[in-house]
């Protein structure tokens, strides 16, 4: 039998991250499930010069960009959906502190799929013919860019299309709804690109809202889209996506989404946010205190809660899931 991979969040960040690494977030779009708690811990451990691979921006990238921890980023969408532009990321891009390489929301997961399959390139039938192909923030001196989405000729028809560069990030910190101690994971809600990312990344750490007994995985093996054999570590961190939402578990904290994005719009606001919401807790219990226990209860009353019902019988109590 494989061994438990449960560990604490500080331990996971200490063991699997380093300055200058390619760091990927596994999330469900900008305001969906994302292990924002992992980004907070990256800041607590003062990681820097990160090269962020984010299929979409989230509040995590917004925060890491605002503080200067990320210097290069690749993503398909850099906003916060109905919460507007991502102010921290904007400031970093506009000031030139962060080079943001643009792709589309299909290009990013196709690049992850290419990395997962070990392909040297991925056929590109989108992004070609636009400035996504023409302009490169990583190689700004060449317009049209030579090496971002070069051309390739289809040998069957002679037609010219583009070629995407595959992605194989050093680490993927993937938010999942449920994990067991071995590293099997269930996601509720769209996978977005977490399946492809989990295979593309050199190492995978799961951050789970809740831990379940492996019996749950044996009952629902078709839901286990990330199997333990590709996972290094499992972190149990309730409300890991806060202030974003997690289907079946908790809704978006609209007030904090707005507060956070407003704070990240200025350097002073970012400093205050980091003081209060990055260094404002010691452990899971004080993290939940920081969110507010009443807020936690309110957000947990999500209309999607029924999605969790089939799995409740396997949920393990928090004391059983300490690393």
């Amino acid at each position: 039998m494989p061994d438990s991979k449960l560990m604490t969040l500080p331990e996971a960040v200490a063991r699997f991250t380093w300055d200058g690494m390619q760091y990927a977030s596994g999330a469900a779009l900008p305001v969906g499930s994302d292990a924002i708690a992992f980004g907070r811990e990256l800041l607590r451990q003062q990681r820097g010069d990160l090269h962020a691979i984010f299929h979409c921006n989230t509040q995590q990238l917004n925060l890491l960009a605002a503080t200067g921890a990320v210097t290069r980023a690749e993503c398909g969408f850099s906003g916060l959906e109905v919460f507007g532009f991502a102010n921290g990321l904007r400031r970093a891009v506009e000031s030139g502190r962060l080079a943001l390489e643009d792709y589309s929301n299909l290009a990013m997961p196709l690049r992850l799929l290419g990395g997962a399959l070990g392909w040297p390139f991925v056929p590109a039938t989108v992004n070609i013919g636009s400035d996504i192909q023409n302009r490169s923030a990583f190689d700004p001196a060449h317009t049209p860019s030579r090496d971002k989405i070069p051309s390739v000729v289809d040998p069957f028809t002679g037609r010219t299309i583009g070629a995407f560069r595959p992605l194989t990030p050093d680490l993927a910190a993937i938010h999942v709804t449920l994990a067991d101690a071995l590293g099997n994971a269930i996601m509720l809600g769209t996978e977005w690109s977490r399946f492809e990312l989990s295979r593309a990344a050199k190492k995978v750490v799961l951050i789970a809202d809740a831990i379940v007994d492996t019996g749950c995985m044996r009952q629902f093996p078709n839901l286990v889209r990330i199997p333990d054999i590709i996972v290094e570590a499992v972190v149990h961190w309730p409300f890991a996506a806060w202030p974003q939402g997690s289907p079946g578990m908790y809704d978006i904290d609209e007030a904090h989404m707005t507060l956070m994005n407003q704070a990240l719009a200025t350097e002073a606001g970012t400093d205050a946010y980091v003081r209060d919401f990055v260094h404002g807790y010691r452990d899971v219990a004080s993290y939940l205190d920081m969110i507010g226990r009443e807020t936690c209860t309110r957000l947990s009353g999500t209309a999607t809660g029924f999605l969790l019902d089939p799995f409740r019988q396997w949920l393990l109590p928090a004391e059983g899931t300490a690393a």
Partner: protein
Amino acid sequence: MSAQDYTRQEMMAIATGREIRDGELAIFGVGLAMLAGYFAQAHHAPRVRAMTEGGVYGATPVGGLPWGIECNRISTNATSFTSAIDALGCLVASGRCDVGIIGAAQVDRFGNVNTTAIWDGPIGDTYRPPKTRLTGAGGANDIACGAKRTLIMVAHEPKRFVDKVTYVSSPGYLEGGDARARYGFPGGGPTAIITTLGILRPHPRTREFVLDAWFAFSGVAEIKANTGWALEVSQDARVVPEPTDAELAALRRVDETGALRKKS
């Protein structure tokens, strides 16, 4: 005139929704585009096969404007959740999707869309930080390349309607004429730009967008004044019928939190 008061944004959403036909495979972006799409479903296209770019199928949003295209408000009653490659790739970029609705920060006379950033003037040969960073292409580039037809929804302001966008995030007809054909996209390109003032459609040969219709509360002069190029007016340009009571009722059921009711 409609018996009820309605906003310019509501008119835009209803005019957009009218472009969606029953049974079509359709993809809706976040925000107003999603409200327009689900309005169509609620009103005249009950069998529209709607999806989001997150691969959420069979859903009808609850609780008002969804926060995002994957959020709990749209996850509550979905019948299937898959992935971005599935929705944007297998169903859209492949050429299967009938219609997609996208937004724009800037749109130009050939229907090219910029949602990436605004610079102080042209970018120049060296790519450089913008004055104002926006959201990037998201799934709109994929929709613009793959959907059989694309609808562009955008507030009608001079700064948004430009002769040539600074950055093409999502391709319309590029330099016009047959320029788009160079890339072999399965999608046909934008068939309408639906604004807070009226509807523009592409000339069949030049692919330049011309004024096709205005709303009851607007007119040719106002639209021309708010368009950053010398806008041509179609010979058969006409006024768009006002929202019916049934349309407004359906839209407001979808727009439960009144996102479109703020007067613009």
